[in-house]
């Protein structure tokens, strides 16, 4: 049993019952977690690409084209596998449903890829049905670089490592391909309500 340090609480607040998934704590701030340096992205060089399972470019938008797409404001709870949760966060983004409209595919899986090399994998159906966005705004402001700006994936029903920062596209695939964290111990799916943090969960 580790030594308990009198009065130590850390930065977290205790959650109310039922508000957060098991094992999570509420935080007041918005922790920045990163596997590498914040990429320096120029909007004139930015694009978002959907690559289908044949390897072909099924769709592509420049920043201007992307920002002309219909966008929506959503308020969601987010849960990080490192145990912090934030309730009622406000985002603005383009629904992935909108981006995949008109994309003809038989693929069941997707890999989101980002500037800096980060990847994460999801079943394609988890990106549809109003459950995922490519978000460019947070709490009424432009999404800051350290939080994934200019745009990040937002998939709040899964642990937040699936909401890839600095996202640049989706690669659709017939086979599932574990991404950056999924290939080194983190759960392939990552449902916070079933506490699917690691491979053996």
């Amino acid at each position: 049993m580790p030594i308990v340090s009198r009065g130590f609480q850390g930065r977290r607040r205790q959650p109310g019952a039922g508000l957060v998934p098991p094992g999570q704590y509420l935080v007041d701030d918005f922790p920045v977690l990163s596997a590498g340096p914040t990429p320096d992205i120029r909007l004139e060089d930015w694009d978002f690409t959907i690559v289908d399972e044949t390897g072909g470019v099924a769709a592509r938008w420049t920043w201007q084209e992307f920002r002309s797409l219909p966008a929506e404001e959503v308020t969601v709870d987010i849960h990080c596998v490192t145990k912090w949760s934030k309730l009622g966060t406000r985002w603005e983004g383009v629904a992935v449903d909108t981006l995949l409209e008109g994309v003809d595919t038989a693929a069941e899986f997707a890999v989101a890829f980002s500037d800096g090399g980060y990847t994460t994998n999801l079943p394609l159906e988890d990106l549809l049905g109003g459950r995922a966005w490519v978000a460019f705004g947070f709490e009424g402001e432009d999404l800051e670089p350290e939080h994934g700006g200019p745009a990040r994936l937002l998939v709040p029903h899964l642990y937040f490592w699936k909401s890839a920062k600095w996202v640049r596209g989706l690669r659709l695939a017939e086979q599932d391909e574990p991404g950056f964290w999924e290939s080194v111990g983190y759960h392939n799916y990552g449902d916070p309500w079933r506490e699917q943090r690691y491979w053996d969960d």
Partner: protein
Amino acid sequence: MRWLEATVAETVPETARTVTLRLDVGDWRGHRAGQHVDVRLTAEDGYAAQRSYSIASPPGADRVELTVERIDDGEVSPWLTTDADVGDQFELRGPIGGWFVWDGDDTTPVLLVGGGSGVVPLMAMLRHHAASGSTAAMHLVYSARTLGDVIYRQGLEALASPHRAVTLTLTRESSPDWGGHRGRVDADLLADLGWPPSVRPHCYVCGPTPFVEVVADALVGLGHEPARVRTERFGPTGG
């Protein structure tokens, strides 16, 4: 390496934001100047957080001393600097690191360059230099924001001697009474205060990551061998 039991024996405020904790550590095997420890705090419900802190005391001191800077939205430093009282306990692992150490077993000149709380492991080296009677020439160049932010101000004055020099440079001191260096550590200051590369001094650079990058690059730019420039990065805020 296992977790050891640390008990706070004394707390010594150093500046408005930093505190030195003097600890009794069970089964402490001793350490080398420049090494650090990992500190782990566990709450009653099992929630734990862990951070690394450099050892400020020299080898052979009675107690293990850590000097901690309070980071306002930190997890661990607020407890260590504000809540920890004599008798409080936490866990500690170490000593860690054989790279960023100075043992004083040769007389090669030593240049120490510290930014903010990066001075802590360098202070252990200075204290070891004094305690061991080393004849190696040693020079600490220490960058802080204001005079009030200088950690160990009196201790540094007491340690300064002909072959153990301390130079402060302040980056945001507004008082006109400060007659010392102002501004960031740059290649010119290092060339002025350090030794030429042909002397092959040992260089130790410690502090926030941006500070370390700038200083290490400057030293290599001046011609010092990269292998002779040892660095320890504290991340964005210096601890």
